[in-house]
């Protein structure tokens, strides 16, 4: 049951933001943190799923932003040199020309992740972090991609 309390930091309280380029909406985004006491390389993430209002998002519509870069979820498991500092928020951008409706939405994040130093007798501890949080949509009109 180690690590369980860290799941509380997985979904950040930041509002959901509709992302616009000039006046054109290209999607919306929210923020997550790595649910542990320490940072890791992204390659330790074995699965990452997102649900908004109960609907699972198509992974081909999701970009993961960290360290000034944009990743596809399918790339994460190979990023053994991309470090996720424990205090840094990753931005999850959902590509959707309609953006997200104003108001509040329930965001659920499921992350399966490997604790890379735990192979005391060969097996790594693999954790399932599964959190939900209701987030408000920001009124902000202009956001940089």
């Amino acid at each position, binding site marked *: 049951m180690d690590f369980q309390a860290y799941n509380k930091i997985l979904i950040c309280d930041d509002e959901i933001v509709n992302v616009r380029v000039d006046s054109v909406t290209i999607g919306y985004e929210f923020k997550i943190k790595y649910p542990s006491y320490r940072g890791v390389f992204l390659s330790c993430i074995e699965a990452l799923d997102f649900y908004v209002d109960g609907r699972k998002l198509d992974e081909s519509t999701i970009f993961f932003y960290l360290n000034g870069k944009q990743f596809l979820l399918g790339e994460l498991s190979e990023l053994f040199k991309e470090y996720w500092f424990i205090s840094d928020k990753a931005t999850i951008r959902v590509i959707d020309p309609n953006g997200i409706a104003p108001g509040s939405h329930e965001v659920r994040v499921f992350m399966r992740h490997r604790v890379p*130093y735990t192979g005391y007798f060969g097996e790594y501890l693999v954790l399932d972090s599964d959190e939900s949080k209701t987030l408000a949509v920001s009124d902000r009109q202009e956001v940089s991609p």
Partner: protein
Amino acid sequence: MKQHKIKLGVSLYSFSTEFISDQLDLEGVLKRAGEMGYKGVEIVAAQMVPEYPYPSDEWLEYFAGLLKEYDLEPVCWSAYIDMGIRSDRDLTREEIIQYTLNDLIYAKKAGFPLVRTQHAISPEIFRAMIPWCKHLGVKLAIEMHHPHHFDVPLWQEFFAVMRGEGKGILGFVPDFSIFQHRPHQLFLNQAVELGFRPDRLAAVVDKHQAGVPKEAAIESDFSAVEREITTEIYGKFNRPARVEQLREYLDCIFYIHGKFYYLPDDRHDPCVPYEEILTTLRDGGYEGYIASEYEGHHFDAEIDSVAQLQRYVAMNNRILNEQEALT
């Protein structure tokens, strides 16, 4: 009555709750440690060093300034051997050496005389680091943490290196998780939250303490979660090491992790035999640091780390001094 020479330091990891929830930043953590009267500090680099594993000179300068400002002494730079970084394979020898050399260099730059590493370094690479440790003037010590313990064959190889070519340069860091013999309160609380019926949980704990085998402790009406947690209790709180083994390997101990999860008061830890451990170390002549290593943050983010640390320090001082007076 001779005065003991054990120093109480703190692993900044003890402030994980406050750090990861952004209640305290690195400066806040250091300030708090200083205010509590700690002098020697350990930093888990992968936790609190931004830009890790390649922190900038600007950060190093900033960090040196903080240590000075809060009158703290850098004692241990904690590194990992993250064997499982990659999805497709474990780290190679070259990669382990790269990470370890990197930590030795940054520890040196940040003023730490000691790097904590982990068992996965292997005896061969551990030995191979000796020239670099000597060249840089930084010691290297492997943490012995549950489920490992003195009798794991690998450790006999490590001790041979520490007592041979590595003498005085290579050592180990016992973590008191190796002596933990019963679940702590936060674990029990979490078990109940997850659905373990309190009476059944109490019965399991009693049976575990009484030496009843796990199979006999699992009742036929246990839910899946009750079975799972019972298995975890038997697997985790099995005290794999004997306290007298500390004395046996005292010459190799460079530093100690005073692991604890929850102290109900400032006198006694119900889960780790601190009275026996501390008097053994003291009477064996251990003169180094014991770092307070509060780990309850794995289980409950509502606990005040500072209060726990204060109880811990009080308990340590009481045992080291009161019990000394009695002998």
